[in-house]
């Protein structure tokens, strides 16, 4: 009988997708560099475009770094499911006994590891360029680490909804921008209030709560959207 031993491991597909995406991204390193380069260039140009006095830059630094991180994440979202949709991998994901929730989560984790996390890690360097007061460094890194994870999760839902559209970038932006706003407001405020001496705990706790919610809801929503998109 062909099907006497059909046991499979739930986590196997999850690990396989993470390994697959990390390997193929590593071999195409230039693809993942573009959000990071965008982030670096836009922040570097900022002091040239506005009055480069320490006082002004320190005031706008938390907000500017957060906005640029948001835009850099947005820039990278369009390709999240695109290749898998085009080459039929998505069909295989849907038709496998592995829960689609975990497969989507694996894709989101890889996206975050290759865009969000590097952005968060180089943020202190950009903080120095924008003369961010030293009290703001840790809150900046922590809030961006959590915040970019939330943005990857929300973005996955948007990317899943729009993957079947030929030119999806505009629709994708319109769908997820409203959901990004609270993250941006809380994130940038966390850094500002830490700089002003009010502590970052409250903001980080709020971001953490949002991350927990997004982890539960967003991969489910994205999985549902992918099932619909795969028909077109």
């Amino acid at each position, binding site marked *: 009988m062909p099907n006497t031993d059909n046991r499979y491991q739930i986590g196997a*597909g999850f690990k396989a997708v993470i390994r697959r995406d990390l390997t193929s991204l590593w071999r195409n390193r230039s693809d993942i560099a573009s959000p990071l380069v965008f982030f670096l260039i836009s922040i570097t140009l900022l002091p040239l475009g506005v009055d480069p006095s320490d006082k002004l830059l320190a005031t706008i630094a938390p907000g500017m770094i957060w906005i640029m991180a948001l835009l850099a994440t947005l820039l990278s979202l369009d390709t999240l499911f695109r290749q898998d949709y085009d*080459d039929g991998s998505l*069909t295989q*994901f849907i038709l496998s006994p*592995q829960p689609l929730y975990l497969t989507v989560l694996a894709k989101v984790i890889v996206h975050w590891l290759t865009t969000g996390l590097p952005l968060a890690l180089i943020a202190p360097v950009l903080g120095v360029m924008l003369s961010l007061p030293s009290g703001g460094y840790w809150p900046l890194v922590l809030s961006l680490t959590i915040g970019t994870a939330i943005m990857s999760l929300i973005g996955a839902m948007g990317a899943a909804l729009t993957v079947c559209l030929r030119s999806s970038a505009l629709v994708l932006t319109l769908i997820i921008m409203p959901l990004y706003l609270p993250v941006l407001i809380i994130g940038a405020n966390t850094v500002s209030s830490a700089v002003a001496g009010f502590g970052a705990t409250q903001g980080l706790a709020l971001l953490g709560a949002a991350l927990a919610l997004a982890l539960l809801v967003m991969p489910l929503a994205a999985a549902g959207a992918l099932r619909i998109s795969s*028909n077109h």
Partner: protein
Amino acid sequence: MSEPLLTLENLSCERDGRTLFSGVHYTCNRGTLLQIVGFNGAGKTTLLHTLAGLLPASSGTVLWRGQPAHRQRQAFYQELLYLGHQVPVKPQLSVRENLLWLGALNPPATEAAIAEALAEVDLAGFEDSPSYALSAGQKRRVLLAQLYLSRATLWILDEPFTAIDKAGVQKLEAAMACHAAKGGVVLFTSHQPLAMAEFSILDLSAYQTPQEFADA
């Protein structure tokens, strides 16, 4: 053992408001080897998508082991192997790496099994070649290697012979016949004349609605 594995009950499908076919009844027992034929646009791929649960049927149901397939998705997908038009072979990964991730979605494949499957599709020695260096036919062969790895009962193959050379077609036909002989079910579409001894044919042209002919 005589229980039918896959049953199509009064299945109808539409695409963009156009009814492609309606009232398809078919029962696949163990050992069925079924070729789905029809003119271009008759709905062969749509039928396969509907059977796999990628598309909802506009009416009718697909039964797997007597139960509606969409109610027992996980159990159904454990026994399903679907190979479509598209070739999910990542160009940056090696042949082996591609089979490993494809295999991990289903019951996991071992290294030895992968080597054996690649030998079956004449890709022995290509394990570590990057997939972008493969020809179109070789990429399809990587996909077909899954047939030798999979432990699924139901094979749904959409145009499996595309871009495969003559010797490869013969081997593939043998693999399909062998799977059916072992009690599996193979559903496939193809426009090629086949040399296989025994297989049934489901002609979708017979299920077109009268209006379709009037429109044409």
